[in-house]
């Protein structure tokens, strides 16, 4: 179909939105380079102070912790999501398929606060896990699970699971099922067929899933805020404390810019590491 002139006007709304987003991002960039004036929302003159302050051990540690938590979450989510995605794609019964899909996907639509709060009820000192362990007599006093990295990662895995399941299932769904059958007809057991045929073919999906999980987790706020309770801090929590609690917009902005740079660096790294695996995908 030849392009129609009225399509020109169809670009304007989108361009307007893009302008809005770019303006917001430009503001963050601009403020990161300006001085903090205590007690005021206005910022002072141009300075690199905000960025040099980031090199202090206190803040550098938060960056390292954030990256570590993101990788841990992405890896654990992959391990847990793969079986679900596999079951989802290979289930024969329509009802079972629907049940798995809805159970796996519902947490995604519950919103951060409900999910995080539910985990507090599970992990707290008076919560589910401690109550069960105390009743069974396995422990004398409640275990301190809240405010630990373990608790934060567990809740984050729960949050990231639906996304990873969807991406893995989409990749697995596009693998021709006859490949695995062919492998089995040639004598491979089901496990060997899976490891040598299905798993390599699903590599693009795995990489897409891990990348998305990493970016998604980096953005997490409610979970580390409520479950970390100030003891496990990610960059998002720091931005909130400094931006909204102390109104130190310039420093919060510089944290955001540094965080963005870090994310892009790591995602690019992931892309480079993944390149040799590209040839494994279905052609």
């Amino acid at each position: 179909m030849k392009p129609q002139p009225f399509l020109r006007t169809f670009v304007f709304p989108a361009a307007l939105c893009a302008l809005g987003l770019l303006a917001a991002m430009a503001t963050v960039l601009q403020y990161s380079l300006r001085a903090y004036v205590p007690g005021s929302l206005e910022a002072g003159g141009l300075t690199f102070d905000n960025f040099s302050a980031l090199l202090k051990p206190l803040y550098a540690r938060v960056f390292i912790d954030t990256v570590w938590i993101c990788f841990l979450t992405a890896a654990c989510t992959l391990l847990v999501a793969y079986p679900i995605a596999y079951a989802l794609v290979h289930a024969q019964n329509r009802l079972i398929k629907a049940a798995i899909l809805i159970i796996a996907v519902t947490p995604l639509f519950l919103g951060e606060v409900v999910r995080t709060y539910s985990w507090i009820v599970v992990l707290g000192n008076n919560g589910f896990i401690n109550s069960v362990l105390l009743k069974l007599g396995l422990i004398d006093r409640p275990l301190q699970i809240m405010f630990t990295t373990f608790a934060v990662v567990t809740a984050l895995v729960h949050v990231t699971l639906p996304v990873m399941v969807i991406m893995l299932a989409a990749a697995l769904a596009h693998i021709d099922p006859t490949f695995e059958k062919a492998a089995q007809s040639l004598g491979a057991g089901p496990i060997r067929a899976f490891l040598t045929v299905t798993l390599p073919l699903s590599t693009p999906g795995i990489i897409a899933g891990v990348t998305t999980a990493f970016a998604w987790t980096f953005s997490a706020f409610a979970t580390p805020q409520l479950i970390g309770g100030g003891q496990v801090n990610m960059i998002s929590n720091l931005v909130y404390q400094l931006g909204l609690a102390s109104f130190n917009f310039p420093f919060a902005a510089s944290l955001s810019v540094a965080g963005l740079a870090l994310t892009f660096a790591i995602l690019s790294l992931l892309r480079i590491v993944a390149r040799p695996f590209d040839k494994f995908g279905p052609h």
Partner: protein
Amino acid sequence: MLGIAGTLAVLTILGFVILPAAVVTLAAFNDKALLAFPPESWSWRWFAKALAYEDFRSGVRNGLIVAGWASSIALLVGTTFAFALDRYSFPLKRTLEAVLLSSLIVPHFTIGLGFLILAAQIGWARGFAVVIACHVVLVLPFVLRSVYVSLRNLDQKLELAAASLGASPARVLATVTLPLLAPGLVGGWLLAAILSFNEFTASLFVTAQRTQTLPVAMYNYVREYADPSMAALSVLYIVATATLLTLANAYLGLGKVLNVESRR
């Protein structure tokens, strides 16, 4: 086909997924004002309290206003841009697309901070407009993807047939294209509305006391009080969401929307 071990693994993992929801449901019915396990006495009073709490009610109202406007605007922008992406070539097309999709990767706290500072700098009052603008930017990628996929699957021969029978481009659009796109449009709008209503991190930055959405109201509540009202509200949330998703699966086919249907 999965074997005993595989089935067990899947059931355990699904159990892990359901665990918080199940626990919160039990906690919501506890008569005492503590988050204790298991409840000694059962009561509906936390549900009554949660439904009557003014901050939660205004949170729902504000959330519906923001979600309604944001998803509708995003639908308009996303649909028009999807058409332009599919059928029109213009300079910087891929750049514009990349900018609009970037909100998927940029953390919500950064976007929220950006809109907050931007509004302060240009003297924009912290009302609904800022919140809606922020949400539009956040949900647009989802609407765009949904509509674009529908558009790509559209058989253009149908449009050409209508045109060859004498319909003007506008008439083709109204009577052939848009009705065929309806599932993608509705699905995209619904997804955007749900994501906007539940959006928390960016909303925390851009909402003020009077434009507070429900997630922000819930967060403020959890920080101050420890009674099971939040548990009751969470249960209502879970039931509503699961119902919505079940209906969506029955009528729209969630599997198709999320692109997880397998080849047979």
